[in-house]
């Protein structure tokens, strides 16, 4: 378990705010951070990794103090045994895929190394340089590099946001597998509601440094108001008025879905909003495909 209780002043372009965290992250939990840019998500990750220091407070991991302002304790990022996947991948441009992964690997345990290559699906890319890789391939390499030194905590800063839908879905499945296989405590930033619902055990919603909501993803995003039997999350891409009702076109994963809405519903909705659609499925049509 990791206990975090700290404050950190964050400077934004127009204002300053305090990132205030009082959280316990359970072992092998898959925790998601959600929030607008500038809400403190990346700072949360960097403070956990030791790349940034809080102004006051403490961080305790498995009973060991990683940071304590009062006692002047600070464990360096090198000693925290954390795997970090950066938003821009941060692959070393001078090294091949293999060298990038081996750079993190001290023991030369080639069986394990091969297993990681296999699990991350980069076996065919080992001699390529990062510049020649696609976004998904870079992400797999970054993931392999982060897990190869057997960290106890895996941190992912918006790892899938730059990828196309198909690559994204397959990497989501891989993340679930890796999380289970290596028994990792995983903390990930994501903006994609279907991704959060699929991967996360728990989600923290950050807003200007404060944790506004937390809980399991479906409860948090449906705000406990509905108990529909069929639900999905997506983004409104089009709103059209037809007679007295409105037709919303919603993109959810690979699918485009049209749903009807009343004028009352529309009042708080606009194109680009993330929504959850739920329906009591009394009479569903189910077709095997």
């Amino acid at each position: 378990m990791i206990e975090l209780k700290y404050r950190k002043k964050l400077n934004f372009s127009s204002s300053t705010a305090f990132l205030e965290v009082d959280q316990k992250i359970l072992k092998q939990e898959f925790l998601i951070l959600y929030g607008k840019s500038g809400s403190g998500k990346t700072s949360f990750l960097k403070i956990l990794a030791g790349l940034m220091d809080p102004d006051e407070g403490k961080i305790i991991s498995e009973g060991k103090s990683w940071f304590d302002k009062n006692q002047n304790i600070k464990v360096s990022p090198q000693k925290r045994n954390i795997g970090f996947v950066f938003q821009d991948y941060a692959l070393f441009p001078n090294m091949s895929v293999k060298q990038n992964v081996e750079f993190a690997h001290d023991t030369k345990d080639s069986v394990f190394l091969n297993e990681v290559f296999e699990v991350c699906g980069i076996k065919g890319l080992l001699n390529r340089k990062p510049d020649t890789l696609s976004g998904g391939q870079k992400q797999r390499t970054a993931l392999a590099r982060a897990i190869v030194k057997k960290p106890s905590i895996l941190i992912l800063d918006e790892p899938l946001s730059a990828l196309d839908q198909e690559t994204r879905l397959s990497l989501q499945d891989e993340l679930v597998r890796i999380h289970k296989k290596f028994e990792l405590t995983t903390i990930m930033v994501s903006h994609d509601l279907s991704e959060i619902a699929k991967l996360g055990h728990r989600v923290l919603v950050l807003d200007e440094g404060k944790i506004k909501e937390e809980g399991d993803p479906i409860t948090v995003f449906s705000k406990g108001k509905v108990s529909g039997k069929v639900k999905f999350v997506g983004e409104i891409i089009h709103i059209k008025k037809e007679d007295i009702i409105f037709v919303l076109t919603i993109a959810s994963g690979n699918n485009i879905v049209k749903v009807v809405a009343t004028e009352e519903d529309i009042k708080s909705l606009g194109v680009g909003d993330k929504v959850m659609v739920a329906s009591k499925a009394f009479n569903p049509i189910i077709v095997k495909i």
Partner: protein
Amino acid sequence: MNEYLITLLLTVKLAILTTIILLIIGIPIAYFLASSSSRFKPVIHSLISLPLVLPPTVIGYYLLVSFSPDSWLGGFLEKHLGFYLAFTFEGMLVGSIIYSLPFMIQPLESGLRSLPSSLKEASYTLGKTKWQTLYKVLLPSIKPSILSATILTFAHTLGEFGIVLMIGGSIPGETKVASIAIFNEVEALNYASANTYSLILFTFSFIILLGIYLINNRQHKLF
């Protein structure tokens, strides 16, 4: 040995030694400047950049005064280390190093600055120390900057005149480098000789720069 050859070899020796020593001391300084947020950074920046704006003779003069055995520094060096810096090759080397410092530091610093901080952070989270990160990740990622810093420093030292004249004088085989030889020959109305030195220096510098730009071009295509 032919006097031309002696002078030219001395010139190249000075340029090579200056470049090597500056690479060794320049990398840690550039790394410090690129990564630190110290309050004293503007002061250090200004000191390093001084040779860009001051006439070389000013620096040469101050160095000559401080190298003289009568001064505190010159006296100390002579007494404890047996080093004479005024009118010696070593003195000229020290002068060249100080004078070419900005040409080494600035390309290295801007190269290091241009790297995303996530590279450094990724290396730290992989358990690597600051020095391992610098030598295995950061420096190999700024090869073109290292190359241009090296070339600029080398070429700049080849062409240096004022500072080496002030500190070195013009002792054949010891401190008489090509740029000074050219000046001497012109003063003695020995145009043919001045022409030989000039042509060699011109061709040599051109070939070096051409080589660098060709290599750099290829490197950019690789990326």
